[in-house]
């Protein structure tokens, strides 16, 4: 089982991928997921984070089966 991780817009270009999978058997802070998947890249301060399509703070926890998304500030409208 795993956490599905998604990246959007300019962030997708800078990490070079749209999706990742993070294997875990216990809840993890989103920052730890980021570090595990992007060890070379510091998590941008302005980054927005969503778990299961709801906004969460940078210290939120994710668990098996969750969809975690990282993206830059939104610019719709």
């Amino acid at each position, binding site marked *: 089982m795993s956490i599905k991780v998604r990246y959007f817009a300019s962030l997708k270009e800078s990490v070079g991928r749209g999706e990742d999978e993070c294997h875990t058997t216990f809840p993890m802070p989103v920052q730890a997921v980021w570090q595990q998947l992007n060890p070379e890249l510091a998590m941008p301060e302005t980054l927005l984070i*969503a778990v299961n*399509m709801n906004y969460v703070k940078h210290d939120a926890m994710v668990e098996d089966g969750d969809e975690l998304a990282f993206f830059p500030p*939104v*610019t*719709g*409208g």
Partner: protein
Amino acid sequence: MQIKLCEQVFNPWQEIEQYQASLTHLAGKYGATGVFVGSMRDFNQGDDVTSMYLEHYPGMTEKQLQQIVEQAQLQWSLLDSLVIHRIGEVNPPDVLVLVAVWSAHRGDAFDASRYIMEQLKSRAPFWKKETLVSGQHRWVEKNTTGYQQESR
């Protein structure tokens, strides 16, 4: 309530007319229709822009828009609401976004449409990538400040 993401050019006035025609149960109940239409400019930050690609997060976009409209309905007396937003390739002067709300009185219509629009700009997961006249592509990095900031 209706929320739509649209890959093609749409006519906001036709959409309002069609949607309002479906609100037969509200005929005579609304005294105000608040409408905001946002269109694509051919300039941004001092540069000429020829087109734009609107990326979005399928599923989350609809979910956030739904929550924003529900929040507006809790805060103001709205009878119905319609939100349409373009996705994919957009060219000036295409319409990018339509927000329409129906209420008994104008105050609710003015305030709720402004609120929905400002929340959409700060919370709905859309991202604009512009193509400039020079052929260069760039991501728009930040939207204008939201409702709370502007009203101060």
